């Protein structure tokens, strides 16, 4: 056959299609699938600047500013739009071919000036896309030059972060941008012996507004003064009252600047905030703590006890009651989830939380997939699994994607899948329910308003999971097994 011969259109027989479809469910396929070295299929992570943008959005009157290609900015914004069903303001300096040749300084100049004039931000937080990272733009110099040239006022805070998409994931971009902003704002603000008395709370990359409000509620109950950094709770959950607000919330910049004199600085996402916490440790006053995301009873207990200890306040009565009510819900409902097997995927800190919750319920987090992380995380997860007999036989897969997960489930079935919307295809293929937890959730409403942390989160997770299993039972059982009570 000559190379350029015109060929007839090909078709596959139904038998061939059926054969391949079945083959993809086999051990043989799984082996080939796991042998992949270059191809990634249906990953469950995004790129750094997305995380950076979440941070930038979470500071008051701050305009997220993408240095790089314009398309990136649109992708980040629409991702947040879809998940939160909220506006997501961000601009960019729209580098194009000439930028690739001459560098992006002129774009940045013009972009900063226009953005400042039009949107009147109190801060612009700059982060990069692939392009300036590949060509090596020097942001420190560019921003200095922009101010020197009068494009923006000298005193306008313009922190920045290098967030190359070819390295890490959205959580690393979150880390870099947060570090960048805190570094900028707290510069020269440390005062010996001064203490704000506050908790600086770093929630991490979390698309669940309900979680953030839950943290706030818990701290209010403790009467612990705090500043949350970043705080997207109002930014991405503002009300509809007939007035669009460009900057509807966020961490007040002055409070962020003062955070360096805080009493306690605490991150709730270890794997999301290593650089930020390294910076905090080296520069911040007060106590520095990294706690696990409080999912499940034990991790919530641990957080409350730590808060109690650090601020010398008793655990509020209301929270004690809530704890008891959550445990009550667990003992009442454990039979609907005990022994069930789950496949879970997502970001490291979320995964640790979900797994902890499942183990407490006597469920098995059977396949645990993190599509971009490292061996240390794998070890930490394995250590967590070892704390419970229900973790036996569960395996952790790092740098494996949702197409790997498909093979795992077909060859070693589970009862349900927990993760963001992207898992709906593997859920459909395998006929399993998908319990939507994580980011993004772009095919259901309001889930991001329902906390999965704290004691309330335990109840919410149980309700979501157990009631769905009951729905399935009612919907799929034969008449003779259809019952009034469950």
């Amino acid at each position: 056959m000559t190379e350029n011969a015109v060929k007839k259109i090909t078709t596959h027989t139904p038998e061939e299609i059926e054969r391949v479809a079945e083959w993809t469910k086999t051990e043989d396929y799984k082996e080939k699938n796991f042998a992949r070295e270059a191809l990634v299929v249906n990953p469950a992570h995004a790129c750094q600047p997305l995380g950076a943008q979440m941070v930038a959005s979470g500071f008051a009157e701050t305009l997220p500013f993408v240095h790089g290609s314009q398309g990136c900015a649109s992708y980040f914004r629409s991702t947040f739009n879809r998940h939160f069903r909220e506006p997501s303001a961000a601009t960019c300096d729209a580098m194009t071919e000439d930028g690739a040749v001459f560098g992006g300084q002129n774009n940045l100049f013009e972009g900063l000036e226009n953005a400042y004039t039009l949107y009147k931000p109190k801060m612009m937080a700059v982060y990069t896309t692939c392009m300036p990272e590949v060509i090596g733009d020097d942001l420190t110099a560019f921003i200095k030059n922009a101010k020197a040239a009068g494009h923006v006022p000298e005193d306008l805070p313009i922190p920045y972060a290098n967030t190359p998409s070819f390295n890490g994931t959205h959580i690393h971009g979150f880390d870099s941008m947060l570090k960048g902003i805190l570094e900028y704002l707290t510069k020269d603000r440390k005062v010996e012996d001064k203490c704000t008395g506050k908790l600086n709370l770093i929630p991490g990359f979390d698309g669940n507004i309900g979680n953030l409000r839950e943290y706030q509620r818990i701290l209010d109950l403790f009467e612990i003064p705090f500043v949350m950094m970043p705080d997207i709770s109002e930014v991405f959950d503002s009300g509809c009252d007939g007035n669009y607000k460009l900057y509807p919330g966020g961490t007040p910049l002055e409070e962020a600047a003062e955070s360096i004199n805080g009493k306690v600085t605490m991150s709730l996402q270890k794997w999301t905030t290593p650089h930020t916490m390294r910076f905090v440790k080296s520069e911040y006053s007060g106590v520095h703590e990294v706690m696990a995301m409080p999912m499940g009873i034990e991790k919530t207990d641990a957080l409350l006890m730590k808060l109690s200890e650090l601020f010398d306040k008793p655990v509020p009565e209301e929270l004690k009651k809530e704890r008891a009510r959550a445990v009550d819900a667990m003992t009442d409902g454990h039979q609907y989830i005990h022994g069930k097997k789950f496949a879970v995927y997502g970001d490291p800190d979320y995964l640790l939380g979900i797994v902890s919750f499942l183990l407490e319920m006597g469920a098995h987090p059977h396949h645990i997939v993190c599509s971009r992380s490292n061996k240390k995380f794998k070890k930490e997860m394995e250590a967590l699994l070892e704390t419970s007999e229900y973790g036996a036989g569960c395996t952790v897969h790092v740098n494996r994607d949702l197409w790997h997960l498909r093979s795992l489930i077909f060859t070693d079935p589970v009862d349900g899948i927990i993760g963001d919307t992207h898992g709906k295809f593997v859920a459909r293929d395998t006929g399993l329910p998908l319990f939507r937890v994580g980011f993004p959730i772009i095919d259901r409403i309001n889930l991001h308003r329902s906390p999965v942390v704290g004691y309330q989160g335990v109840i919410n997770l149980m309700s979501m999971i157990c009631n769905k299993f009951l729905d399935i039972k009612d919907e799929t059982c034969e008449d003779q097994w259809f019952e009034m009570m469950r």
Partner: protein
Amino acid sequence: MAERKPIEGVTIEKTEKLIEDTLAFMPEKAAKKRRPHVGANEPSASPCAVKSNRKIVPGVMSQRGCAYAGAKGVVWGPIRDMVHVSHGPIGCGVYSWGTRRNLVQGIPGITSFPLDFTSDFQERDIVYGGDIKLEKLLREADELFPLNKGLSVLSECPVGLIGDDINAVTKKMEKELDKLVVPCNCEGFRGVSQSLGHHISNDSIRDFVIGKREFDEEPGPYDIALIGDYNIGGDVWAAKPILEEMGLNVKAIWTGDGEIEKIAATYQVKLNVIHCYRSMNYMCKVMEEKWNIPWIEYNFFGPTKIAESIRAIAERFDDTIKEKGEQVIAKYTPMAEEIIAQYKPRLDGKTAMLFVGGLRPRHTVGAYEDLGIQVTGTGYEFAHQDDYDRTAPEMAKGTIIYDDVSEFELERYVETMKPDLVGSGIKEKYVFQKAGIPFRQMHSWDYSGPYHGYEGFKIFARDIDMAINSPTWKLVKSPF
């Protein structure tokens, strides 16, 4: 086509003043750049005075995407039986995975591939180049997804910057895999919008696809190709049956729910009928030049335009087709009238402002008018002059036309013109809804659709009524 009747309260003077007032907020240089992109409509002017296809103004919140978005999201993604590889870092593939609603038939992962395939570039790929990885990747993809009919490689920014040669790799792999393996150098930094991505994709089809296959069947006199329908929300499935009822054989679809080998064989058809002129006119011209295939634009939004289009298409064929065309119109007109009878009383006299991509800013105007809604402003994310020239006659005098409008501007235009509905994209949706203004996401039909064809009109009418008349808007203003 008669000029649109004037819209009460809309005048060239008012609109010009609105534009000036708005641009006055901008730095001088930016305002100067933006000024030519906005204007009050002169339906009779030719060409339209609004400038387009220029770089966005840095720092201004544009709604535009990039060349990759135009290539992956618009042209390639909808081809159902190919493995489309987002070649480069992780993000682009993830963000464009399943977010454009270009629906496809087939068994996902087996015979159709609405998946996210990516090379997930790491630092080492930037340093050492990604060509070898790409080669391996294509081999792996073909092994794991053996029923694919081809593979496309869509370059992301770094690929072009680091000097990889994906064309060499795809050439090699096309031979090795004995399938269509298509390179597309659609790095996001190229050009000023999605539009260049369309064009680059057209080039790739021209250079690496078309002519490489032929249909099994003998060509027939009624063979056509449906160009520029991306099957958003199932549009193709509402449009194609109309053409088939007219007696035409739709041999290939570009590219919504399309099949790559049929696209490769399209040079055998007798007529190309094109819906989205912007993204596909180049390939129509290529086919016209090289294979003498004529082409015709049409519009399947709303019964008025559908009937016009059926007649115009039929005009290119013999009496059989013309007659069948009339039969189709006669068959569906009562249904359309019923829809209009149901919804027009609820919508008559309302106004809408649009800002979308491709063809919709002009093509949907007639559908709104069918429902009694007047469009007081419209514009495109990434149009060219020829788009605006086609738009001016569709809009009433003095209505506002804006190109690549920023959110800042659009907010003010809407604030002043007070439409009952804004139809635009997801980035604008919640901005306007917060302001209490009914909105439909008109890139993706707001998770509804199809809107094409008669079937689509029914859904369109329902959705527009729902948006405008939802009682929830009455609750926006708090009594306290």
